[in-house]
């Protein structure tokens, strides 16, 4: 048993810190730490810096421009980058479709798409969920019918995160209706500029435009955009989901959010004293910090178990549930900490270039919206109920 980093790992952490000290733009870090909205340009600017360092594609083999990090190194990166206020990486290209293309795509697809993901030329989004296919993803109905050297795609995808910025979408489509749900699905890469595609915003309860509906009306997709074999898409989709699930626990993000919460509670007053000194509020914070400590160690145990290769199994589902509960608990406390100021919803204060007076503490403005927005954490990436089903079946054998 040794829970310490090795000398090499410590040296890597110093290297990460030196890089972030030098290269992370202060304005972007300030937005991330203040829970403010980031623009597409912010994301692309940071991606360029990461790519120049060779640290953007952490799940890719080196031959395609990836970086060979051990699971512990990835963890160190995650931990440090959250602490510094690095923008959440938009995973759809680099961490979702790319691993699928690398494992199941042909050489031409690799040569075409991987460099464009690295350069930021392509912004990918994910075409998985449909209005009728959420938790039961395999029941999806978007059809792709072969017509000569094209597929004709018709149907609707939904909850497409940041689809408004995307020029490419990877989709699960139904190519065979005669077989079991899982056996008639294919994995298609679709150019969003193809005629017949319409993107409609979905505004969420916090007033945010983050997700979209994507409609396909007789969209012609060249057959060379099929990844792997026809009707084998479900296998590729599941492979991708293992990448999605690791990291959903958001331990690093929770640590950063907890730091923010403690700073907030030391500034807000209750009966003339900092809220952090209030016995009942400080106990609430203590409890979530203790839970986070335990989850962080659980996370390290999972990371250590895959140090020799492979991807985590159903344990990561357990951690997704715990991790998202902890993040939501921190958001709940942050909203509580501002008391009556949880009510005002001053949207202009959420943008970074706002230069008026803040109604309250400058950090109070986004906290209610953030609490509501992060109710999504226990819904997306496989709802927490579905995660528990996975644990119950795969680990407990129930």
């Amino acid at each position, binding site marked *: 048993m040794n829970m310490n980093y090795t000398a090499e790992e410590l040296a890597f952490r110093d290297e990460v810190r030196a890089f972030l000290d030098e290269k992370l733009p202060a304005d972007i870090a300030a937005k991330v730490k203040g829970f403010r909205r980031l623009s597409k340009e912010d994301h692309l600017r940071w991606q360029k810096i990461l790519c120049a360092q060779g640290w953007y594609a952490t799940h890719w083999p080196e031959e395609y421009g990836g970086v060979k990090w051990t699971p512990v190194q990835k963890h160190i990166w995650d931990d440090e980058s959250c602490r510094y206020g690095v923008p959440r990486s938009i995973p759809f290209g680099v961490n979702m479709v790319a691993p699928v293309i690398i494992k199941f795509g042909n050489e031409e697809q690799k040569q075409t798409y991987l460099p464009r993901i690295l350069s930021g030329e392509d912004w990918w989004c994910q075409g998985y969920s449909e209005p009728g296919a959420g*938790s039961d993803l395999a029941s999806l109905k978007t059809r792709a019918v072969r017509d000569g050297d094209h597929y004709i795609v018709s149907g609707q995808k939904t909850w497409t995160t940041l689809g408004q910025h995307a020029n490419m979408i990877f989709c699960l489509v139904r190519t065979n209706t005669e077989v079991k749900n899982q056996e008639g699905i294919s994995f298609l890469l679709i150019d969003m500029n193809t005629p017949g595609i319409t993107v409609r915003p979905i505004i*969420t*309860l916090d007033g945010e435009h983050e997700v979209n509906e994507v409609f396909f009306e007789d969209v012609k997709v060249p057959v060379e955009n099929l990844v792997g074999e026809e009707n084998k898409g479900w296998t590729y989709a599941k492979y991708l989901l293992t990448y999605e699930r690791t990291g959903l626990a958001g331990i690093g993000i929770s640590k950063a959010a907890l730091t923010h919460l403690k700073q907030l509670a030391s500034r807000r007053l209750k009966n003339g004293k900092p809220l952090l000194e209030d016995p009942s509020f400080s106990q609430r914070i203590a409890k979530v910090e203790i839970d986070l400590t335990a989850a962080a160690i659980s996370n390290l145990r999972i990371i250590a178990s895959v140090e020799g290769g492979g991807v985590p199994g159903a344990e990561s589902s357990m951690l997704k549930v715990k991790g998202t509960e902890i993040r939501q608990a921190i958001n709940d406390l942050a909203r509580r900490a501002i008391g009556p100021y*949880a*009510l005002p919803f001053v949207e202009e204060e959420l943008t970074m270039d706002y230069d008026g007076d803040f109604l309250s503490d400058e950090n109070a403005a986004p906290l209610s919206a953030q609490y509501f927005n992060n109710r999504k954490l226990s819904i997306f990436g496989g709802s927490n109920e579905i995660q528990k089903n996975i644990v119950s079946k795969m680990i407990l054998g129930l």
Partner: protein
Amino acid sequence: MDFRLNEEQQMLQDTVARLVRGEYSFEKRLEFSETELGFSADFWRQLSELGLTAVPFSEELGGFGGGGVEVQSVMTELGRGLCLEPYLQSVILGGGLIGQAGNDSQKEQWLAGIASGELKAAAALQEPQSFYNLNDVETRAEKSGDGYVLNGRKAVVTGGHCADLIIVSARTSGDSRDASGLSLFALSPDTAGVDRRSYPTIDGSKGCDITLNNVQVGADALLGTEGQAAEVIEYQAGRAVAGLCAEAVGVMEMTNELTLDYLKQRKQFGVPIGKFQVLQHRMVDMMSELEQARSMAILAASVADSEQNDERRRVLAAAKNVIGRAGQFISESGIQMHGGIGMTWEYNFAHYAKRLIAINHQLGDDDFHLERYASLLQAS
């Protein structure tokens, strides 16, 4: 023992229910919310025409002489419609403060207007540092000639953006958080030195922060005895707490109806998702929480207008604590069981969910009221 409404009370509730059903569709509410006024002037007028804004006032004022139960009936139905009108702020709280503390000429000047809905009042009792403690007041009112000069800042005045009359708590003596030395002043928002910064609130309503910069008011602006306002504020905030509890019950009825419908209608894995036991149990918990909340709202209504004592204080603190906890559980569970659709602006559920959380931030959250209750615990 009989928990049913009497005939008159039932008629009152049915009247409000019909009006809300007819006039307050979800789509219309979104439109009302986006106007500068933040609610429907037309609906407000109809509440007035039906005598509903006069419910808690005496018969001389054209009122109904209604007590906690009557107010509860109105508020629950307004909650079901997610109505944005300043009934709580103006009729219950504003009217209550003037009714209790005002002298005859002040009552004559303002109460009939409030009862008829022509005058909208709002109470500015909180401050940036006060964190729900209504005695934590730093705004000062200094004697000046015949009147007073007010300086300070009042925070998150719900309904204050459109109020014609603002009732401000200010310190005429004593230190921050002293109960003694608080006074109430009624003033027009147009008075020189009053600056309102209005904003939307997270639940689709509106409010404002108010800066008072050398605001000169006459002696006739003072409501009640100088320095003795703390008791009035506590009592009337208690009536408003009971009103909020009743509103929350109406909101929860809707969240639960919507969620139950969704469980029956939404299919995944070939069956309605309501067939899954884990969701059934959560729905049962939502229902139990609503019934706990309803019981406490009834209890709160029963003491809202009774004489002040520790028993009344305990009941109101307990009720708001239960409402706060139940509201958050129901809001979060309902969103979870709806999945993504429960988080969208276009679907009404999310707006009900947000209102439940917002209610927890008005006049003290569940933590605040738990502490208050604990401080009133009886040894025996």
